[in-house]
């Protein structure tokens, strides 16, 4: 079986625009977004990277350019190795990436999730609807400019919203997000709690210096 070093070398030979991507674990390459589908197909057909593990995207920040980077992880069930391919989306306002759902059917839902949470549109996707949030939700919650607590919108069902007067409200963060502390400590100390407990619903958040 081909060693992973050979894979990156072969990819770079076939796609001269590919550049190595800093990575703490698996071999990773940056590619121009137009070459991604060809590169993934090449990995699958020539090097038996037959399993698409994940399709996701990175929001590099509201001010950053390029703002969105789409990431693909492939795994070889024969060679037991991962390869990561990343590509910057051309547009910062309306990021677009090519679909690979015709190569790996599993990409269908991964791409829907990435579209739902980060707003990356996948071209030629057979059914690009939201998958976690409801149809008609106006935001993409994993973008950097979206607050964790949420933004006020009507409930998915307007009839119920009107009947109950309930809306999607920003959650009271009260020093959150609520995180569990890892490690070998007393279970009670490791329970999920707000990081900053100096304020809550009743006590104002202290002004930052």
């Amino acid at each position: 079986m081909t060693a992973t070093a050979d894979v990156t070398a072969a990819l770079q030979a076939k796609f001269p625009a590919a550049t190595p991507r800093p990575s703490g674990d698996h071999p990773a390459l940056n590619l121009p977004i137009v070459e991604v589908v060809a590169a993934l197909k090449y990995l699958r057909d020539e090097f038996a990277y037959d399993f698409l593990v994940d399709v996701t995207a990175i929001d590099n920040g509201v001010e950053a350019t390029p703002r969105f980077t789409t990431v693909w992880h492939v795994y070889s069930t024969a060679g037991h190795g991962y390869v990561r391919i990343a590509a910057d989306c051309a547009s910062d306002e309306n990021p677009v990436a090519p679909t690979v759902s015709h190569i790996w059917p599993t990409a269908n839902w991964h791409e829907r999730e990435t579209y739902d949470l980060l707003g990356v549109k996948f071209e030629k996707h057979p059914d690009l609807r939201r998958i976690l949030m409801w149809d008609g939700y106006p935001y993409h919650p994993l973008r950097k400019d979206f607050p964790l607590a949420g933004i006020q919108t009507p409930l998915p069902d307007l009839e119920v919203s009107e009947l109950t007067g309930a809306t999607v409200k920003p959650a009271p963060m009260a020093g959150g997000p609520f995180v569990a502390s890892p490690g070998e400590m007393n279970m009670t100390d490791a329970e999920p709690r707000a990081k900053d407990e100096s304020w809550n619903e009743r006590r104002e958040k202290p002004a930052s210096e």
Partner: protein
Amino acid sequence: MVSANNELAYNTKIEGDIVVTRADAVINWLRSSSVWPMPMGLACCAIELMGVAASRFDIARFGAEVFRFSPRQADCMIVAGTVTYKMAPHVRRIYDQMAEPKWVIAMGACASSGGMYRSYATLQGVDQIVPVDVYISGCPPRPEALLDALIKLQSKIKKEPSANTLLQSA
């Protein structure tokens, strides 16, 4: 030979034994002793809910073992788990489909207040969309806590002016 019954009052020798009581007491006794739950199992609390129904805790001891997966046949919706905003309208719709009289138990931290899910996706307490009768703390609550909530609900049902409500709605 049959003779006419000319007595004006009840004759226990003819009518059998009579127990005199209030309509409320009878109706509420019936209702509180056969609370049919509608399991709204949305997250891990539903596992404890199943534990309550099983033999060790045996919710049948309190007459509430008849879990109905049709809202038309249920009396008490037990909201067991995290209610997301996407799910919230469906919870309300199922509540609307239940026949009167109906009650709601919010089981666990998530159903009561959103719990640890302080995020854009989670309804911060199911009481925003349905009227809750009993809240249970815990993440998840022990099965005993749910039984305690059921007993509390039963004592609440026993105080309701059921006869009046029935007469007014008729």
